[in-house]
Every structure is written in structure tokens, then in C-alpha cells.
């Protein structure tokens, strides 16, 4: 349950966002990110469907490099 999935925001509608990673799109809640302004193109760490932290593009790519090896 504790694996965080790095995703990129494609579209924002209120507290909901359409996010994408590795060609897979998911609805993600931004409700826990009200302290952090987010926009299309930003990267977030997603846990059980909720964005819990904004991350950089570099962190997004380096995390997926690791996941591609271990998952």
C-alpha cells in the first residue's frame, strides 16, 4: 500500500485531475494538495489515488527508471 506512483497532470477539473504515467491515465484527487498550486504538466506522487506531493520532472523520470527495473 505504500508505493507512490509518479504521474503527470494532463487535465485539472476542480480537485480532480486526469494524470498519466507510462501511457496509462487515471483520475487522481488533488484534494490533499490545496497548499500547493498545481497546473497542467506538473508532476505529482500519487498514493491510493491521491496526490500527496509535487515532484520534479527529474524525480518523475528517475523513479520510473527504478520501477521499471524492480516491478
Amino acid at each position, binding site marked *: *500500500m*505504500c*508505493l*507512490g506512483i509518479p504521474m503527470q497532470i494532463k487535465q485539472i477539473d476542480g*480537485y480532480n485531475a486526469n494524470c498519466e504515467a507510462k501511457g496509462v491515465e487515471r*483520475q487522481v*484527487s488533488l*484534494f*490533499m*494538495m*490545496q*497548499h500547493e498550486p498545481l497546473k497542467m504538466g506538473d508532476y505529482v*506522487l500519487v*498514493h*491510493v*489515488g*491521491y496526490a*500527496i*506531493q509535487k*515532484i*520534479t520532472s*527529474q*524525480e518523475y523520470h*528517475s*523513479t520510473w527508471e*527504478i520501477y521499471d527495473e*524492480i516491478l
Partner: protein
Amino acid sequence: MKPNFTSHDAKFWLQQIQTLKLTKPVKIMNVCGGHERSISQAGLRSILPEAISLIPGPGCPVCVCPEEDIYEAIQLALNETITLVAFGDMLRVPVNLPKNEIRSLEQARSAGADIRPIASPMEAVEIAEQIDKPVVFFAAGFETTILPVISMLVQGVPDNLLVLMSGRLTWPAVAMLLDSGEPGFDTLIAPGHVSTVMGPEEWEFVPAKHHIPAAVAGFSPESLLAAFYSTLRQLQDNKCFLDNCYPEVVTHGGNATGKQHLAQVTDIVDANWRGVGIIPKSGFALKKTYANHDARVCLPSYADPERKRLGKMPAGCGCAKVVLGKIYPNECKLYGKCTPREPIGPCMVSDEGACRIWWSNGQR
């Protein structure tokens, strides 16, 4: 000068560790199933100097979920006209009942109970919106999972969505080990995503109060090796502090919105950990203001204090010792008889259980 955590590879950190002059064996404990999975899958145990032992500690919320809470969830699903939803890991965890009785949520589902695995609190809301009967969300997990559950409640849910809260805080289990006087470890790797949401400051008591070196780590071999090096270096220099080897994600204060929701919705209470017992101030409970969404308030209780082996691990199972880092998974006498296909103890069920991680990585 302090090395930059994000600009060095695993080889660099391994070389740094090899330059340290360790005068005695060192036990490094992690308290996160994700850390243990990365350690096992990357084979980090085999490349470190022999003097270093990596101990998986209390990092699996499914493993410590109270046996009586799982029993309660099973009985609610079997006896009440409800739909029960839970994270998939919880469905196969057995309780201590005779084999001819229904011992897991999975078996209850086979017997006709409406039980559905979910991957997100948002799915619980969607299910509740689609049906008329009560939907009970059996919410077990550590802080990283429980904060989204709480935020779901703050955002607003249908009247028929009830939460059977079984969430736990990670740090009190480590505090309990340290307060026991026999923690079984010399340095601590603090969990990356728990620290992301709660803030790394939660772990400052480890060096400050107990003089144990600590470092927050991410999930890459680089970040884990950097954290090992940091705590070993602290030990060598006799200078303890909380280091952050996952600074790109873990920032001061944690997730401000999530923590605000947590304070609004939950009280922190003494709570039972399966096979371990009561740990003070280690559980989340819904405040009275959320009683209309509290399954424990809105539905009959099936708690049975007379039930045999209540709260215990299955007979012969070493999960309690594994969870506390007292034994390695393969030191349990059931290891091998207990497998992911036919689990006896919860540590072999969950993806975050040390036994399942070790077995899945070929450790025998």
C-alpha cells in the same frame, strides 16, 4: 563537505560505506515494506560488508491490523445488509478461527457476502453513490494510506458510506521498541512516504531522545545506500541526528492539507497491534463529529471478548517477532509451510509483509 544525496549513484554510496571503519556489527532497521522490497529486490544485503545487518521492522500495516478488527469486518459483511470494501491486501488475512469456520474476508465473499477490493478511497465513494445500502470501508493502513481516507471524509461522502477505522501510526511502534531497552537495532531508516505526508520531524525523537542515528530514505538503491551510509557515519563519529536522504520528496512539515484534515477528523488513541499488544497513542479514531460515518457507531458490534486467541497471531506463527525485527522471516518455523499461495500469518499475505517479500525474492 556533506555529499549531495541526489547526485551520486549506488556504487558511490557503497564505496563510501566500505571506507567506514566499523568496529562492531551494526543492525540497521527499516520500518517500511517498500524499503524492504527495494532492499530485497536490489540484493543490497549481499553487497554490504558482513558487519552490517539489515533488519525489517514494523513496516507492514496489514500485518499488525488487529485480528479482532478483521473478525469484526468479516462478521459485519456476513450478518448485516451492507457492502464491505477494503484494500485488496486485507482480503486474504486469516483470523484465529477453526478451519471449518469463515476465517477471512475472501472466504466470506465466497460464502456470499458483498465484499469488494478497492485501490483508492475514491472507489469507495463511487460504490456508495451507486447503491442504496450502507457501504463499510474497512480502512487499515499507516499514515500514507489513512490521510487520503480522511481527506475523502473531509471532501464529503454519501450518507451511506461508513468507515471502519483501523489505521495506525508508525513512529509509536519504534518508540515502543526503543523504550523497551532492547530495540534490536543500532540505526534507523525512517520511512519515505510516511515522512512525506507527516513530515520528517516525527522521527527526530530517535536521535534526540535515544541517541540512535536515523535517516529518511527513498526507495531507490542510491537513496537507501545513502541513508545506510549516513547512519553508519553518524555511528562512527558518535554524532546522532536525523538525516534526510530523500529531500526531493520529503520536505519540512509534510503534507499541510492532509495533516490539517487529520486533526479535523481524528483523535489519536491507544491501539492494539496484532501479536504485539496495545501501543500508546498509535491508532487513528474518528472524532464524534464524524460519528455519522463511523461504522463502529452506526452498526452493531460483533466484538467478542470471549473469543479464543483474540488479537493473537495464528498458532505457531512468528509474524509478531518478524514485525518487531526480533527474527528474520526465514527463522520462523512455519516459513515454507506458510507461503504466499497458502499463507498462515499476515506477513506472508501482504505485499509489504517481510515474509512475502523474502519468499518472493527467493530467500529460503
